[in-house]
């Protein structure tokens, strides 16, 4: 049966980027559909009726919702090349743990760093840096979280890098000064074609966040 793959996405979404990277790593041909989140398509509402969110991976008509679930699904179904999760159960547990940590911490702290002001913003920046420092420790001397090659945790975290210019400008802090190892890791990932073609330019994301802030009334 021919594999028909469609990705419902929104170009600045770090969650969408995860799925793009996974599909690229596996060399899967797919149709990319950018959604207007203020005017969601009938297809999106039909494929993700519970959350009505992107990304949604549609494989032969069946939807897989939630980015990390889609990445795991891609890894399991297309298991003939570029494995993203390790084969050892304990290492898989570690990978799942750290991807989940990134979900719980990076997105939230990052978001607070550009949507809040004053004390709240300072707290968000502190949380954000602490989170990256913990991840730097996890990385250790490895080139990637996945070891010698890009793995599940790399795919889960690197998309947030495309938002760093926005975080830095609006949060007024220098991430590279605090977490040089993290930045070096992100740049290393960007040398991979799958990552380079899945992440938008940081400046484009910055412009997008600028517009969002105006709409949200954050000055």
């Amino acid at each position, binding site marked *: 049966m021919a594999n028909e793959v469609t990705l419902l996405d929104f170009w600045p979404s770090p969650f969408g980027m995860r799925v793009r990277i996974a599909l690229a790593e596996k060399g899967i041909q797919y149709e990319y559909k950018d959604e207007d989140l203020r005017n969601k398509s009938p297809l999106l509402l039909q494929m993700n009726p*519970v959350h009505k969110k992107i990304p949604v991976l549609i494989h032969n008509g069946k939807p*897989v919702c939630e980015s990390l679930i889609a990445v795991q699904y891609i890894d*399991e179904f297309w298991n003939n090349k570029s494995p993203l999760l390790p084969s050892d159960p304990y290492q*898989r547990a570690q990978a*799942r*743990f750290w991807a989940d940590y990134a979900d719980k911490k990076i997105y939230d702290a990052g978001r607070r760093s550009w949507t809040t002001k004053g004390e709240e913003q300072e707290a968000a920046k502190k949380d954000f840096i602490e989170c990256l420092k913990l991840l730097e420790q996890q990385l250790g001397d490895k080139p990637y979280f996945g070891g010698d090659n890009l793995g599940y945790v790399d795919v889960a975290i690197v998309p947030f890098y495309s938002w760093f210019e926005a975080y830095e400008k609006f949060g007024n802090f220098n991430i590279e000064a605090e977490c040089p190892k993290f930045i070096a890791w992100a740049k290393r990932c960007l040398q991979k074609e799958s990552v380079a073609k899945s992440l938008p330019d940081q400046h484009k994301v910055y412009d997008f966040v600028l517009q969002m802030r105006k709409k949200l009334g954050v000055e």
Partner: protein
Amino acid sequence: MDEVKLLGCWVSPFAHRVIWALKLKGVKYEYIQEDLSNKSELLLRSNPVYKKVPVLLHGDKAICESAVILEYIEEVWPHNPLFPKDAYERALSRFWISFAADKGNAFHSFIVSTEENREKSKTELVEVLKIVEDQALKDQEFFGGDNIGVVDIIFGNIPHWFEAMEESVGVKVVEPNTLPRLHAWVQRFKQNPVIKHNLPPYEDLVLFVKGFRQSLISKTPNASA
């Protein structure tokens, strides 16, 4: 064979998810009760990031976060499977695991609800549970189909724990006329011999929840008992 230990707390539904998975697979383990107001060195060392239970210790390895632990258990002890074999079905199970984690707020709002906002909180919760009933449980005996699966385990705090919350708040949410299939599943789930013999004592749980509710209410702005 490496030793298996579980750091848990008698009241924690998350720790019970792991207990049920281990027991359903017949895995022998040592249970270590933690006093969460005085966390052990072992817990702090094994879960430095969150310092929470449950933590599964397998030999010298520590696995944290109940959802991660359940996947680990399935992979190390694949007999009596709790996850579906098919990749797509597995993705669906993971969707509901994620959904349950996402909806914690609705349960929280309910537990701190007062006379004024009780009905609204109940309505919101019923909406969430209707989704679970219609789209996850459907017309099956269990979320896992004919037998208990990982999604049953994930929603396993609805029986017993949520019943204790309903009693504390003074309002029934899971009722046979509004959520008939979920209500029937609750009774069925509790009857399973593994589940039945691995639940915290109900009266103690109610007392705990009542106390917990009071402490949350006193911390919540604009809330009153």
